């Protein structure tokens, strides 16, 4: 049986990708960001899964306003890094895992989650930056990745509770797949940041810290938080944090082992948060 071994949480700031791609990781500004991932790169080498289920949001790349899915699962065999306006990032093609993706789709749709099934999709920084942070600059990503895109751009966006329950359904789906795969689930985006308007640049360190504590210790309670609290306290783009609840919901009910925790302000406009939780 397949099982979820660990979950990884990280911000996915585009400037981090640019800094990596342009060889700026040694600059003092960026050094502070990347130092938080030294441990993680080693950890991933030591704990390479068979598949990564990567939860992220599309940033006006694969989906235009013509059609916005709440939840979209990538079932293709590969996904090309997108040109988001700066030219495509020089990173490897993302290989998918069509069989497991189709199995998860089948299982969670039966559990009343109304996924959009995607067979072709360019993937943007929301997906590739976390891979870069965790893997550096390899010639190929270390394992197949199932992209899972969540609408956190156009309201109404799904509630934290819905996301958390979706995570639980994904857990069940993975557990019913009869290949002995080790699967990691990554939740990306956040933490506090606001990119728009006169309140741009908002950061709430205290709130972020409490979010991390609650995510570890009592995610079911954290999942009850309303949209407005995310927006008010963590900025308009802080809403991306609901995606972390999908990854957390997919973990077992036992308290997880905290393998790594990191927090740093700023990377560009954003408070960078990062956690690695292992199932016990």
């Amino acid at each position, binding site marked *: 049986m397949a099982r979820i071994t660990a979950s990884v949480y990280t911000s996915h700031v585009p400037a981090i990708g640019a800094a990596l791609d342009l060889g700026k990781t040694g600059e003092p500004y960026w050094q502070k960001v990347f130092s938080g991932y030294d441990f993680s790169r080693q950890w991933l080498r030591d704990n390479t899964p068979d598949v990564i289920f990567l939860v992220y949001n599309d940033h006006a790349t694969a989906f235009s306003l013509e059609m916005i899915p709440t939840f979209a699962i990538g079932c293709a065999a590969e996904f090309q890094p997108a040109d988001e306006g700066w030219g495509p990032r020089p990173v490897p093609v993302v290989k998918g895992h069509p069989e*497991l993706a*189709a*199995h998860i789709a089948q299982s969670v749709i039966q559990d009343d989650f109304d996924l959009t*099934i995607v067979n072709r999709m360019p993937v943007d920084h929301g997906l590739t930056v976390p891979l870069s942070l965790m893997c550096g600059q390899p010639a190929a990503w270390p394992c197949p990745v199932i992209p899972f895109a969540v609408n956190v751009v156009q309201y109404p966006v799904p509630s934290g509770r819905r996301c958390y329950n979706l995570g639980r359904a994904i857990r069940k789906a993975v557990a019913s797949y*009869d*290949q002995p795969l080790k699967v990691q689930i990554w939740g990306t985006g956040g933490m506090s940041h606001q990119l728009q308007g006169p309140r741009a640049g908002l950061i709430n360190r205290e709130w972020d810290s409490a979010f991390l504590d609650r995510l570890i210790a009592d995610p079911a309670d954290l999942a009850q938080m309303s949209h407005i609290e995310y927006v008010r306290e963590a900025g308009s783009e802080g809403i991306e944090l609901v995606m972390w609840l999908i990854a957390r919901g997919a973990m077992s009910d036992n308290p997880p082992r905290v393998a790594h925790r990191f927090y740093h302000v700023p990377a560009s406009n954003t408070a960078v948060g990062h956690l690695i939780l292992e199932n016990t």
Partner: protein
Amino acid sequence: MNTSKQKRVIPGTTMFDGEQARKGYALNKMCFSFNSAENRAEYLEDKEAYCDKYGLNEQQKKAALSLQVLDMLAAGGNAYYLAKLGGIFGLDMQDVGAQQTGMTKEAFKAKLVEAGK
């Protein structure tokens, strides 16, 4: 593969699932393009070149060019999309049904009428 184990076997019936959708992607995409009259005309001008443009594999190409519906289904085609290809040649769904069941169109129609009694 895991999912195939849970698949229900219904004689003469293929469920268009993820496996079929992946297998038939290029074929169905070509059929999807036939929503436009311009593309239908282009297809008729040079069918093989058009199949190549959409990246059909040999199995799909052969099935499409011969208009054998069962072969197209085996190559991942979906009925709703294949209908657009059939439409180019003036085939309606009863022609398609008759072909798949090895009946004449008249016999196929009679079978349907019988089913309503």
